[in-house]
């Protein structure tokens, strides 16, 4: 405990506390887990990145169908390879933490669901989303007919301005009324 604290630095730690929804213990734990994932040569670097592959080995993300999207959304890497620095990692945990607000949660949920990064959820995004939710195996997949019906229904409900896509404010409008979202949009180390 003492060593991790000294590694992080007191000022930085308090700044992180100020900027995230995490408590001190959680940040320290996150740091511990993060350094465990780092390879030896990376540790010497000033601001090491963990490649997406090793992030995905975390048990908390292992069985999440959106794990790759999550990495891409929170990554600040220029290569768009989904690698995370410690700060990105903290951002991730903060957004998924217990005390994060609905606003920030829905914002990131939107970006996670926006598979092609174009700022709206269009039919393609929704299809991908359904496929993620129903799993990879064929017996749980929906038939094309069902898929079309489902997506039509969704658009009918949440596409308020009828432009064929769901944009962020529409998405937040829908999400903010859901009773389950805040309690299920959580990842805890």
């Amino acid at each position, binding site marked *: 405990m003492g060593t991790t604290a000294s590694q992080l630095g007191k000022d930085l730690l*308090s700044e*992180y506390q*100020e*900027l*995230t*929804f995490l*408590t001190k*213990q959680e940040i320290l734990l996150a740091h511990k887990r993060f350094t465990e994932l780092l390879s030896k040569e990376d540790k010497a670097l000033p601001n090491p990145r963990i490649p997406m592959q090793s992030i995905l080995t975390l*048990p*908390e993300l*292992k*069985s*999440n*169908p*959106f794990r790759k999207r999550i990495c891409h959304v929170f990554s*600040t890497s*220029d290569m768009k390879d989904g690698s995370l620095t410690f*700060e*990105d990692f903290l*951002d991730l945990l903060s*957004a998924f933490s217990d005390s*994060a607000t609905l*606003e*920030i949660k829905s*914002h990131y949920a939107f970006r996670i669901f*926006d598979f092609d*990064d*174009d*700022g709206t959820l269009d039919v393609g995004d929704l299809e991908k989303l*359904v496929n993620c*939710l*129903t*799993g990879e*195996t064929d017996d*749980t997949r*929906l038939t094309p007919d*069902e898929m079309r*019906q*489902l997506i039509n229904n*969704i658009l009918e*409900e949440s596409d*308020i*301005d*009828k*432009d064929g896509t769901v*944009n962020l*404010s529409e*998405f937040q409008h*829908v999400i903010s*009324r*859901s*009773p*389950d*979202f805040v*309690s*299920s*949009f*959580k*990842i*805890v180390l």
Partner: protein
Amino acid sequence: MTKCGVSVLTTGDEDEVSSCYEEHEWGKNRVKGREKEREKKKRGNARKKGASRAGRGDEELEERAERGEKGRRRRKRDNHDGKGRERDEEEQAEEKSGRAQEERDTEEGDAKRKKKNESAKREEKKEDGGKRAVKEKANAVKTKKHKKKSSEEEDVEEEEEEEKEKELRPESLSPEELEKLKEAVDEKKKLIQTLRGKPWPMKKKLSTLRESQEFLEKYEGALGKGKGRRLYAYKVMMTKKWMKFQRDFENFKTACIPWEMKIKEIESHFGSSVASYFIFLRWMYGINMILFGLTFGLVMVPEALMGRPYGSMPRKTVPRADEASAMDFAVLWDFGGYAQYSVLFYGYYNNQRAIGWLKFRMPLSYFLVGVGTVAYSYMVVIRTMARNANESGGGDDNSFNFSWKMFTSWDYLIGNPETADNKFASITTSFKEAILEEQESRKDDNIHLTRFLRVLANFLVMCCLAGSGYLIYFVVRRSQKFALDGLDNHSWWERNEVNMVMSLLGMFCPMLFDVISTLENYHPRIALQWQLGRIFALFLGNLYTFIIALMDEINLKRKEEEIVKFNMTVWEASLYNGTVPENSTAPPVTIHPADVPRGPCWETMVGQEFVRLIISDTMTTYITLLIGDFLRAVLVRFLNYCWCWDLEAGFPSYSEFDVSGNVLGLIFNQGMIWMGAFYAPCLPALNVLRLHVSMYLQCWAVMCCNVPQERVFKASGSNNFYMAMLLVILFLSTLPAIYTIVTIPPSFDCGPFSGKSRMFDVIQETLESDFPAWFSKVFSYASNPGLVLPFLLLMVLAIYYLQSTSKSFKEANVELKKKLQMARKAMTQAAEQQSNNNASPQAQKGEARSFLWWSEIGSSGIHGKKKKKKETFRALCKDLNVLL
């Protein structure tokens, strides 16, 4: 993007970067000619800027031109906003998509930009004397305030402007400017507080935080003059300290929550619904801790420390007849013998009004703790219910059925592949079901058969319930007969028949119900509700039969008591006559308290019954856990190697964790505690112990031998359902307890209220002897029916009023929802119209939309609080601005 990178490198000016964003955005909207024009202009500007790096002389001119440019741009954009709403939307979308890259760019240029920016500013100031910059800045701020602050980009601009404000010298400012500075400081503070809620990458947040803090440190102290300044600085320091303390305290608090890690582990394996049981268990544990603290601290400990010691009087001594077996384990296990004559039960307490050197009012304390236990429980349950209802307020409308299924059905906590597979399957089925339901209201193939089967199922269930009720009644009556015969003549089974039968019924009847419910062919969720309702009825029926039987027993004991009382007088008379016939004033000191005949003390009997019930219930729970879950898991696991079919996938398989059944068990257990706690003060302590053990045991059992549920239900919907059940149980269990307290006179020779005609007389007694005369007078006036009745009437009226207002709110809510739907329809029409002719749909569409948002403001305002309303209002205004 590359262009932007270049321009950042060459000019490094903040303005340039922001314009570069726009460039990027507009670049995407390539159709519009005007944008191109602007692009050109900007590029020209950039070039100019580059040139100005060579000759710094025209720096100021440049700066002003820059500003003019910016203003123009802003105006232009406003224009543009007015013209094409649709385009604006697109822009917004683009903005969002491009944001990630933009932000990255910002970071890259950040350090460099800042330095350059500052150096440029310094030069500007040298030339300008600072004063003008101030004015300009003020103007800039003002214009900015008129502008809408919606998109990210503007946030960036805001920052940039605030950064410039840093250059102001506080000493040279007029009061107005000071005021402005103060505003800026406050804004910064607000920014710091809201920073964590901004979806920015950490680097940006960090730099913003540092800048703002630097700014605050620089100017905070400068605000205020002379004395005020010092005070202000002191205040600032104290707020800082206070914030830090609060944060530390928050950390401390979260560290203090017990079993957090355990629950998180379970959460990650089984999803939030199983975890919700454990959270409920922990909550229950907390309540019981407090109840335990009350009874232990105010009743048991004072009596043990300050009351008369064991053996000093008949009620505190084991009777001579039982002395030989009083220490036997079997007797103690039944809470007889020494356990019966201890602080654990009602009968041990003395009716001495004040005990010890503290003059502790024992009987009063006993009574008040009993009342307080119930009152506290009511308060906690209702408060929690209200909070839950607030949190999920308005979550019951079905207008976003599909979207919620789509966007919120994944439980991100799931970290176990098996659970994930189950979740996939359940999501798929829920999708399919929803589609089916949408396509057609399911046609029933044979409605008569289903109806018949459902009636049959209900009939069977009723039979089960009646049967179990009769069985319990029968067993309790039989046990009374056994008790009259004396317990020693009977086997262990006969002595513990009642509890065992109740526990066994509680164990097997739900399984029976489960089998019966397959007849009904309901939707799983409805089936679960029926199942829960039936189990609830079963438990309740059992409990009430038990209580009725107990009432019979109480009456029997009271008759016995009459006889004993009569015998006592005879015995006392004979004692006096026999030992000292002539001198009747001399006290008969030689009688040992164990030899004194005594009444049956029905209160202790009731307490004992409840304690035994709890113990046997706990035992059966643990044993079913060990056998039903653990042993089964072990057998399935190891016999699978040498069995003819696959045990793990086939028939026995591993057991699932039954959330609802466990919650029900917990609730009923708590009901028994509430019922019996008055007569057995040890019950909360026992329950704390039980809950503590079951926390560990069940956590372990879940992790090692259960598989995730196949039907995964949401945790949130059922929370208040359980709470409502708990409230019902609380009410039903306090009912008999209060009935006995109010109607039945206490035993004459045991307990804190012995010698009184009713237990609540203790209040009267205290009022008379411990309070001044006027107080009891006031009290008697206040308890006069002439005052109480109007008061009750007033309360009823208040309730009626509140209910009718809430009803009208609800109606208004429904009305607004209707309007919302109408607005939506109007919008659809508008959209259709737009597809028909692209000329003038905007006005209509905008109307519909504004109408929609406004009605939403109304609907959210109704069940929200004022503050919430304000917030939504603000947010909606923002949305409105963006959209229109």
